[in-house]
């Protein structure tokens, strides 16, 4: 609008200046196009990275040393009091213990099962492709839905599992078995993911290894121990770490099936963070917990990176 006014006042000069500016800008853009476009293209990612990852994490750190009101606004600095009370309370350690038990109940069984499946499906066989798709499919099946199916299957009074196996177990209602029940659901999804990675790793093993083994008359177990296992061991290690990270973040099945109960039996860290913040509206203890969770998972990742470096080094 202003430009138009100016142009009517000083038509010649205005036009000239505008043209020059336009030409200059175009020229400037032309000359630095690759740099300008680069900056322009990386900005959205940098904004999102700051707003929802790093910045959000710093916000969590900030909240963990402040007391917050019911709407999550920091109202008073409190130092490390929250951490101190967490580390001296029983609830946090119970969550840690349950989380570790949960990892043991999921990571080892799912890796073993997936490895067995991948070894079973190795090589050519009739319908091999279909089988491959079928065993990978649970990775795309939502764990919320699977949890509900497992709940009907494990239902104590009329569930199919109790009836078919002639058991009388209370499963997710029993504080001894609740964690196992949740682990079953999580395993069901994990096995498929592990299967995808392990069968990809097995496909990379040269067929000639297996051929010469069978010429030498090696039996199935020997082939598994001497060829299959060594060739997937890097993948197994990588999956162990990924599974630990995923299991620490398992939330849906616990929320749907047990709600952290009975009496804290399935109160893993990620669930207790949710409960503190979104059931009890205590944002700062939840923030302190999630900072601790961050450091636990960072430790796990560090172990992986360290040993990966070593392996590369020795090769």
């Amino acid at each position, binding site marked *: 609008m202003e430009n138009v006014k100016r142009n009517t006042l000083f038509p010649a000069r205005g036009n000239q200046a505008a043209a020059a500016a336009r030409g200059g800008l175009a020229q400037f853009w032309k000359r630095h196009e690759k740099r300008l476009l680069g900056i322009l*293209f990386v900005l959205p990612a940098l904004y999102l990275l700051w707003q929802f990852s790093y910045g959000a994490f710093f916000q*969590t750190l900030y909240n963990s040393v402040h007391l917050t009101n019911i709407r999550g606004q920091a109202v008073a600095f409190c130092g490390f009091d929250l951490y101190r009370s967490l580390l001296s309370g029983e609830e946090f350690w119970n969550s840690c213990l349950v989380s570790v038990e949960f990892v043991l109940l999921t990571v080892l069984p799912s890796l073993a099962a997936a490895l067995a499946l991948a070894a*079973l499906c190795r090589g050519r*066989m*009739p319908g091999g492709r279909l089988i491959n*798709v079928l065993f990978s499919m649970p990775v795309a*099946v939502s764990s919320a839905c699977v949890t*509900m199916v497992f709940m009907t299957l494990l239902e104590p009074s009329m569930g199919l599992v109790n009836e078919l196996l002639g058991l009388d177990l209370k499963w997710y209602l029993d504080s001894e078995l609740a964690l196992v029940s949740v682990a079953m659901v999580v395993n069901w999804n994990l096995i498929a993911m592990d299967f995808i990675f392990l069968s990809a790793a097995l496909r990379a093993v040269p067929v000639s290894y297996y051929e010469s083994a069978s010429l030498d008359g090696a039996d199935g177990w020997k082939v598994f121990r001497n060829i299959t296992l060594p060739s997937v061991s890097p993948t197994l290690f990588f999956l162990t770490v990924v599974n630990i990270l995923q299991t620490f973040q398992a939330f849906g099945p616990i929320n749907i099936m047990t709600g952290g109960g009975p009496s804290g039996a399935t109160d893993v860290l990620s669930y207790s963070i949710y409960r503190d913040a979104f059931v009890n509206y205590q944002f700062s203890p939840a923030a302190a917990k999630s900072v601790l969770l961050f450091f636990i998972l960072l430790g796990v990742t560090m172990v992986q990176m360290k040993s990966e470096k070593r392996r590369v080094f020795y090769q």
Partner: protein
Amino acid sequence: MRVRKPARFLRRGGLRALLVIAVALVYLFPLVRIFSMSFTSASELYAAEASILPRQFTLENYVSVFEGNIPIFTFLKNTVAMALLITAIQLAVSSITAYALTGLDLPFQNVIFVLILGGMMIPFESTMLSNYLFVAGHSLRNTYLGLILPFLLSPAGVFLMRQQFRSIPREMYEAAAIDGCGPLRLFVRILLPMSGNALASLGILSMVTAWNQYVWPLLVTDKNEMRTVQVGISMLQGLEFSDYTLVMAGIVLVLLPCVLIFIVGFRFFVAGLTEGAVKG
């Protein structure tokens, strides 16, 4: 013919195939059960003794779902919108970022790339609270924008697209420059069309992940009209609803689109997962 030559069938891996089928039936039993329950009438479920397949095949549960007895189509509409938005924006953001990191003249490319990958190290739980407060503070609860915001940048996606752009030979960039093709044109007309496989991998991965999202939609929606399928369907079980067969018919409708996408794009999904996770 097959019956006459059982020995040959066994030698060719038939025995192994039979074993695999048995294992598949056990492993995939929960899926079988969803289907069979969705075709069983509620009265049979409660009256009869346990049976894996329905004694009397019925469509009544599906009829009831389509009559709107559970608001599954509202949930589906929200989920489709959320998943499509996340996928489209992730594809766009990943490819422009990867292009900035490889083909353009951006300072500190490696530092930025490491920072983006480092974002993967921060677990969702550690940012969840702040992200929730951000979304709630901007009154974005119960909106699509609120549902998708924390997932628009996918470090694995940037990694995948960066790999893809780097795999395109240098001569391609040089030839384009000599022909007077500017960087923007090069990106839109040459690099993107050459990256179909990588884009498909990332797209299917994002789509399936977004579809099955549970925690975040649970936090930022509390109205039935804005619920997504995963949250909505699991809420049904909390009510006085003991009509499991109806819920199972709903679950079939929830699973079907995602599983179909997965099967159609299986090759891409596997490629994306195994490649993108190597660095993750």
